[in-house]
């Protein structure tokens, strides 16, 4: 579909025997914030590098703006702003001088662009401080300024809030949100911090060991992850029919012969039980299951702790 800004097909990157990214199919929709969520070493950075043509995929294709990236780098890349891993700048120059170099290379003649983008990340324009003397957070801010300086359609940001203080994080979050809502930019953002993605993203892809485990909108994910009612009944298939006919409810999953999960908590559990009993089902358990997004994430990535 053409309204996908980024679409990958079986994207795979193999380093030696290790598949860092394995048959990844992600779909980033226009004007949305897509959060790529994964633990350390999951393959987020590798994926983004392939999206920018910084490393060649072992197998698979990247489609950006509906065109294949391979062979079209020259026309595609100028419309992307990116921040991959740690910020990289020349230590012997000031922040503004660093940005001026990239502005010149990008053919930005408007001098105020450098100033504007520095202001955006609250870094001073007239500052004698060299990049080598910047703090980690300042470096990160400069990298964000570089990513947005040329007003790109698509932003690819790899852990952009790394090293920022809480106020900085909130600022960057608000600013990314604004870029998306007011300016219609599409943003792909990666993080290993679930709460960060949950606060910002519209769509989420969960990646683990190079494999995309889930891809859905945040609301879908929340529905799926957080709360459901688990019924243990004498006949789950029959219970499902009752839900469909009497309640017109289809958001359920039959786990096995006796177990059914209902993902809609707006329905009254009492009314459902009453209906089940009226239809002659035996109910041994009805349990409202509340799972935090975090636990869900742990469960799908099969992991223990995550930051």
């Amino acid at each position, binding site marked *: 579909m053409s309204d996908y800004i980024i679409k990958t097909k079986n994207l795979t990157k193999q380093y030696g025997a290790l598949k860092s990214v394995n048959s990844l199919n992600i779909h980033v929709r226009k004007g949305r914030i897509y959060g790529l969520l994964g633990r350390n070493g999951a393959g987020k950075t590798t994926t983004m590098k392939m999206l920018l043509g910084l490393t060649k995929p072992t197998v698979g294709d990247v489609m950006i703006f509906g065109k294949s990236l391979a062979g079209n780098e020259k026309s595609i890349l*100028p419309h992307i702003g990116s921040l991959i891993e*740690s910020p990289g700048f*020349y230590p*012997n*120059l000031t922040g503004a001088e660093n940005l001026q*170099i*990239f502005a010149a290379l990008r053919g930005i003649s408007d001098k105020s662009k450098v100033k504007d983008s520095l202001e955006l990340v609250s870094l001073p324009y007239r500052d004698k401080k060299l990049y080598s003397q910047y703090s980690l957070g300042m470096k990160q801010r400069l990298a964000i300024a570089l990513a947005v300086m040329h007003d790109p359609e698509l932003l690819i940001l790899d852990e952009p809030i790394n090293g920022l203080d809480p106020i900085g994080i909130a600022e960057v979050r608000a600013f990314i949100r604004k870029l998306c809502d007011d300016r219609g930019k599409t943003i792909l953002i990666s993080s290993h911090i679930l709460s960060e993605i949950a606060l910002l993203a519209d769509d989420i892809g969960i990646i683990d060991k190079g494999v995309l485990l889930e891809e859905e909108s945040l609301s879908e994910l929340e529905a799926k992850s957080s709360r459901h009612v688990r019924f243990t009944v004498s006949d789950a298939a029959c219970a499902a029919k009752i839900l469909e006919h009497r309640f017109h409810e289809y958001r359920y999953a039959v786990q096995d012969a006796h177990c059914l999960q209902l993902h809609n908590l707006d329905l009254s559990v009492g009314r459902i039980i009453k209906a089940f009993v009226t239809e002659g089902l035996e109910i041994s358990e009805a349990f409202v299951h509340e799972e935090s997004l975090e636990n869900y994430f742990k469960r799908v990535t099969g992991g223990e702790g995550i930051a």
Partner: protein
Amino acid sequence: MLKLIRCEFWKIKRKKLFHIAFLTTFIMPVFYFMIIKDANLDNLMSVVQEENGFLVLIPLSIILAASLFFEEQDHDTLKNLLCVPVTRRRLSLAKLFVVLVFDIAYELAGFFVSLLLALLSRIPLTGTGRELLLTIACGALLWAASMPCLLLVIWCNRSYIISVIIAFAYTMLSYILHISDAAIRVPLGLNIPTLLPVPVIFRWLYQFHSLEDAGPVITKFYESFSPYFVPTPTVFAILMGEALLCIMIMIKIYERQKI
């Protein structure tokens, strides 16, 4: 491409290595001027062209070029450049061009210092124009002569220390070769000495020495050496051909390197 070259010059700003390197061009002529009593312009210039060039400029330009190439990796700026997009081929060509400008400027600075010293001590200025041309040509040829070694440095892709060692080893080897008969007293043709950069430059440069104040020893050396002189078009063809080949391989290697 012009933009890239301009940016490469901006990146040099506040780089001590470049500034200090540039200052070394003054050491040799001044030193020579102080120890030699009756120096003439020809001698002074040949110090700039030969000793300064063969011994100082070659390792310097290799080290500077290496630092230009490694800087993008060290500071993780290559990814930002590639995303612009800038190709590695153009980036390396821009860097090599900066080194070429540096080499010529370096030789020219030495030239003007010598000229100043000559003026101050009332040494007659003869053939200044020719010396100027020779100095510029030397800068370009020495740049070309450092390419094979730079290729090695980039291929190794190691730390600065290793690069410095390689650069000095290459310089020493070249210097020894340029005073050894086996490398310079061989006629031009399809043989190894014809391909050795520094000895070939020497065989080209030596023919321009003036024999005016020369003693019998020098005159005899000049005469016995004259069959092995290399004409100007030939020296340029050999060195630029070699440099071109090295640069092509260099770019291939650079393009393969991971981020």
